[in-house]
């Protein structure tokens, strides 16, 4: 079992150094090799469980309510401008 760490890191938008690539390759391969024990079980007729208790969608009324703490929220922004989050240019 060998995992393509570079590809997975790209999917996860995670920058990794060449040293990390080597370390993670070893560690993640060992974890996935261990996970292969699940193949000992025949689960063809077993339904999957995503939640342990029954889940239903919970909806609230679609009502506009004022946001009172915009300032506190924007205070956490790495960069803000005119009450908006500022990011690097995305359109040429």
């Amino acid at each position, binding site marked *: 079992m060998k995992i393509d760490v570079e590809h997975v890191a790209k999917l996860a938008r*995670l920058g990794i150094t060449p040293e990390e690539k080597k*370390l993670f390759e070893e560690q*993640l391969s060992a974890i996935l090799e*261990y996970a292969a024990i699940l193949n000992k079980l025949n*689960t063809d007729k077993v339904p*999957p469980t995503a939640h*342990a208790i029954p889940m239903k969608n919970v909806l609230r009324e679609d009502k506009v309510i004022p946001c009172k703490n915009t300032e506190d929220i924007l205070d956490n922004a790495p960069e803000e401008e005119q009450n908006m989050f500022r990011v*690097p240019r995305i359109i040429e």
Partner: protein
Amino acid sequence: MHARTAHELHTLIANKKISSLELTESVLGQIEKVESDIQAYVTVTRDEAIKQAKAADERIKNNQNVTPLTGIPIAVKDNMCTQGILTTCSSKILANYLPPYNATVVNKIKDAGAVIIGKTNMDEFAMGSSTENSGIHPTHNPWDTKTVPGGSSGGSAAAVAASEAILATGSDTGGSIRQPASFCGVVGFKPTYGRVSRYGLVAFASSLDQIGPLTKDVTDTAILMNILAGHDPKDSTSVDLPVPDYRKALVDDVKKLKIGYIKELLGKGVDKEVKDSLEKAIKKFKELGAEVREVSMPSFEYAVATYYLIAPAEASSNLARYDGVKFGHRSKDARDLLSMYYSTRREGFGNEVKRRIMIGTYALSAGYYDAYYLKALKVRTLIKQDFEKAFKHCDVLISPTTTTPAFNIGEKTADPLSMYLSDIATIPVNLAGLPAISIPCGMSKGLPLGLQIIGKAFDEETILRAAFTFEQNTDWHKNKPNL
């Protein structure tokens, strides 16, 4: 004073023998004395705590809304949002995060008049079993500072054990309340999934995470559960069921209670002292009139592998929000949007978080989804079914909380898989969404051992009754570390 339980202190406060301010100063004094050795906290909110203590004393003076927690100092795990108070998740990516709102549990604690003394250290994003994965600093076990306090709620468990808080909150995704409680010789309780609101809890694995108490005895756990439990419209997974008065479950009686001990959790890899302590617990329960039998859970062999696919899969999705845009760290190297994501996440996350994001991304990616993620969800069904079968004949199930006492700092950091395998007894409970407690039940080489009691969904009361009875008839919870 700080060494006592919340219910003892409540009596003293209510009878005006002590004030909350005196008690809070006593706890802050203990923090000053031992914190350099233990490092249980990320943030100590000294000034805010003094203010809250004075407000609590005012409430008591006027006999206004006095609850069993009014004026009692409590520590909050640093993954629960506290408005205007740093909430770091012990991660560099959130090192400066000041939440604009409180988690529901934090509001409930404040409404009860408890004094929030600080935010406790944890494995980064609750990913780990030793608190060594904290991006801030490691925490040390008060029983032996060369050993880990467990994790991920290691700061909360160590703070309670070292009397740096009277009680604390933790969160449990695969054992993160029960395992550190076991390692630190305190009581740790994971309620049924859906019993306590997760609103404002920084999400790790949303189908597994649950908030619960860490306390010095079972009575304090019931008291804190009375505050924490209940439906919350802000958490769509919180369950709208009536909440009982958990204190009423504290009955010293297990006669005719049907207890099953889990055969698979007494097998290979379990320390002799741990096995011995469980056998003594079985003997004690029999003496007290319980009916004890062996149960077999064949699917447990697959629980760790199942968990380490499902939890990382959910985490990889939940942690996508840390992108450097709206809050948290943003890399200085951001030239364009993509490089901002890559370098922000490289600089902000520690290795364990990176590993889990990648395992989860892999398990969910095209071509591997069925083989890993879907397969794990199917095995999760088998684990749930094993519990359902056992609960046809048993009221509660028991096992050791951990296979060994606390291990040494650094012992397992190089081999993530060996760290994962140490959670074999606690993980199946989360996969099935069940409630479970860890209470002190023995000592091994000067370190505490824990007894896990697992109950049926939403039957927290039978667990508390069994735990309370065990505690009333043993002295393990009276052992305290030398500090």
